[in-house]
């Protein structure tokens, strides 16, 4: 087997917290070639090493921190690293990515990934400094919030460039949607990766390295990086590319709030209303004009300064200082809770990041609880005397704190809306908006039908990042892959094809380590493929990478089947499938999910909801056939 000559460092670090053992294993280059690296490589590892009997909180569950081949190479926007495990929220494939410097630093410290198994008897932290690995006691850090934890570790190491990924109290308390937060306040938010970390009593991972990440053809790689930068800065770049860069830099991801409300694409009042007249109060341009104090970007991006730095110095939510809310957070704590108070959203965002919780699932849990209160399923007494009515901004911030600390009603809501609803009864279950246990993110599937299919089929439950085919409805086209024009909303014709494409596409570029913002309609993927070729020494084109993305998608699907998933879980909650909105631009529309799914399975080459033998052979995954089709074996 020929080693890939660059991009990858070539080693995975294994840490067994049960046995206090540390070891390194060589990267399997054949697996890296087939599954790219990052979350793709992790999918194969997890499939091989855990089974349906492994509870997400069992010590045997493996928690992987992975950085793909492009991370840290200097290619613009290649900043995404991933954490993968069996999710305690869905009991299926769990994956969450964050940007920032942690992934690059992990590689510079000598490893493409860190695989953690076992569970420590007392709080611990893993330090990886230039190839040296130490397990340290972390009792002093337990109960600390994420910001203090990171600062403490950096101060102790006497090196502010030590990068830290840690959990807060929510992860320690096993909130099923607890996140992992870095010192740069970049967050692996979705799916409860932080809860699995907490179950292992692993408080933090600190990394620092000075190794140079190998590049197979340095000269060509440098030229391709420059070509990528020039392509997006050129006045000849497509209008949608220039606008995306300028708009995201100026008003951040939250710039979409107001437009989406007018287009009928913003979730409102726990998915029950179609209009939110106060959307302008929580949109990105309003943030720019009020609490925004600065903008920033990931090191190695150089293209889009999407970070918001906010500061609130007076009023009931002061002090707030740090990273501001993204679009998803402005929607989840804003319109979803009928809350037009931007400062309260910034505060809730800070609470979630400090306690270490996903802002989407937390906001969704608060909206769920609010509807339960409205319907009398939860009482004021259940809520500790709080009147959790729509738009009560103080109550929703308080609720976030209770959930993060698992206090009072937070003990129940920290289970996620699916499990919470199952304990509250049938009426509550109708208020719980999730797919496979994952709370639905903030893109209305009754407006964007591609997202209806994407949510229903996503491997990690309702997700807007494991394929965002709505990009094609928004005009972020991909001419290199045959999507030359904007998809017309409410037209189901090309939607299954678009969804499959975008899922495979995202699986590929996420495994490589690219940010969705720089890839989706900005840097042409043919240039990305050239960069991958120059970095690894393996010549590929963009179609080759898309095919690998398809393989990764099928690998994650196979993992889910191994965990007990079934085809009938590919659906949407009743509210999104059968209850049309009564007002707004998406009024009276329902996604034709059954038809879309039928077409999707054919395009995927799936039978009974799983990859067919033929598809597995086509993707060179024959070794999975006995697992998936055991009953058909002769």
């Amino acid at each position, binding site marked *: 087997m020929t080693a890939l000559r660059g991009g990858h460092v070539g080693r995975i670090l294994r840490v067994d917290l049960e046995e206090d053992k540390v070891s390194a294993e060589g990267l399997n280059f054949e697996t890296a070639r087939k599954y790219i690296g990052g979350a793709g490589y992790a999918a194969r590892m997890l499939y091989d090493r855990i089974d349906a009997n492994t509870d997400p909180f069992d010590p045997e569950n493996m928690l992987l921190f992975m950085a793909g081949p492009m991370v840290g190479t200097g290619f613009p926007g290649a900043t995404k690293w991933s954490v993968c495990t069996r999710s305690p929220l869905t009991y299926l494939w769990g994956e969450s990515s964050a940007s920032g410097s942690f992934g690059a630093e992990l590689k510079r410290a000598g490893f493409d990934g860190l695989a953690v198994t076992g569970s420590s008897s007392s709080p611990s932290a893993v330090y990886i400094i230039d190839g040296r690995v130490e397990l340290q006691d972390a009792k002093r850090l337990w109960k600390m919030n994420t910001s203090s934890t990171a600062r403490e570790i950096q101060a102790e190491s006497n090196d502010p460039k030590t990068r830290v990924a840690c959990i807060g109290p929510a992860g320690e308390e096993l909130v099923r949607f607890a996140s992992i937060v870095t010192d740069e306040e970049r967050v692996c938010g979705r799916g409860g990766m932080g809860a699995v970390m907490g179950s292992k009593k692993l408080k933090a991972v600190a990394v620092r390295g000075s190794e140079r990440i190998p590049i197979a053809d340095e000269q060509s790689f440098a030229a391709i990086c420059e070509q990528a930068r020039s392509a997006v800065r050129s006045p000849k770049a497509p209008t949608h590319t220039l606008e995306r860069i300028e708009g995201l830099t100026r008003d951040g991801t939250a710039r979409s709030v*107001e437009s989406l409300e007018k287009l009928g*694409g913003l979730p409102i009042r726990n998915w029950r209303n179609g209009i939110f007249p106060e959307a302008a109060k929580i949109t990105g*341009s309003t943030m720019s004009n009020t609490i925004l104090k600065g903008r920033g970007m990931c090191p190695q991006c150089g293209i889009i300064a999407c970070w918001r730095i906010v500061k609130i110095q007076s009023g009931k939510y002061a002090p707030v200082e740090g990273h501001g809310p993204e679009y998803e957070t402005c929607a989840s704590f804003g319109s979803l809770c009928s809350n037009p108070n931007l400062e309260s959203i910034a505060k809730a965002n800070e609470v979630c990041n400090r306690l270490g919780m996903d802002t989407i699932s937390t906001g969704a849990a608060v909206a769920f609880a609010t509807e339960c209160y409205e319907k009398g399923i939860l009482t004021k007494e259940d809520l500790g005397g709080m009147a959790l009515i729509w738009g009560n901004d103080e109550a929703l911030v308080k609720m976030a704190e209770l959930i993060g600390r698992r206090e009072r009603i937070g003990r129940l809501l920290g289970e996620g809306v699916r499990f919470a609803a199952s304990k509250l009864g049938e009426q509550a279950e109708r208020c719980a908006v999730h797919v496979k246990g994952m709370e639905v993110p903030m893109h209305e599937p009754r407006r964007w039908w591609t997202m209806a299919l994407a949510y229903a089929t996503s491997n990690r439950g309702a997700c807007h990042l494991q394929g965002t085919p709505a990009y094609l409805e928004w005009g972020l086209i991909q001419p290199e892959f045959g999507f030359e024009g904007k998809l017309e909303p409410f037209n189901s014709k090309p939607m299954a094809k678009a969804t499959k494409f975008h899922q495979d596409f995202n699986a590929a570029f996420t495994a490589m380590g690219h940010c969705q913002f720089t890839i989706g309609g900005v840097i042409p993927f043919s240039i990305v493929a050239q960069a991958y070729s120059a970095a690894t020494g393996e010549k590929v084109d963009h179609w080759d990478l898309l095919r690998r993305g398809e393989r990764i998608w099928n690998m994650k699907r196979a993992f889910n089947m191994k965990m007990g998933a079934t085809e009938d879980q590919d659906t949407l909650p009743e509210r999104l499938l059968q209850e049309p909105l009564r007002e707004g631009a998406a009024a009276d529309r329902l996604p034709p999910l059954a038809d879309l799914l039928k077409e999707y399975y054919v395009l995927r080459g799936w039978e009974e909801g799983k990859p067919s033998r033929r598809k597995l052979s086509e993707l060179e995954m024959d070794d999975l056939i006995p697992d998936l089709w055991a009953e058909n074996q002769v």
Partner: protein
Amino acid sequence: MSERAVAKIRVALAGWVREIVGRSEVEVNVSNPTVFGLIETMTKTYGDRFRTQIIDESRKELRVIVVKNDREIEFLQGLATPLQEGDRVMFLPPVAGG
């Protein structure tokens, strides 16, 4: 001289386009009732900045989402999309994801 048709159009705006106009909803009388005519009319009121934020002149491409009665004009007749009394047109910053 024949009298030209004038249509009263309801216009909704969001984000930085709203900031140029200063309001989120306005009514505009358009004597050349097409989307392009509406932009020209509004440019007279709100200045050249309005037009340059809506249309990339050098490429003849839209910089924002323009919707007529819940349908994007890209799927109608583009800037030549005809308007009539009572139509609702929205000028919205592009959606970016998050």
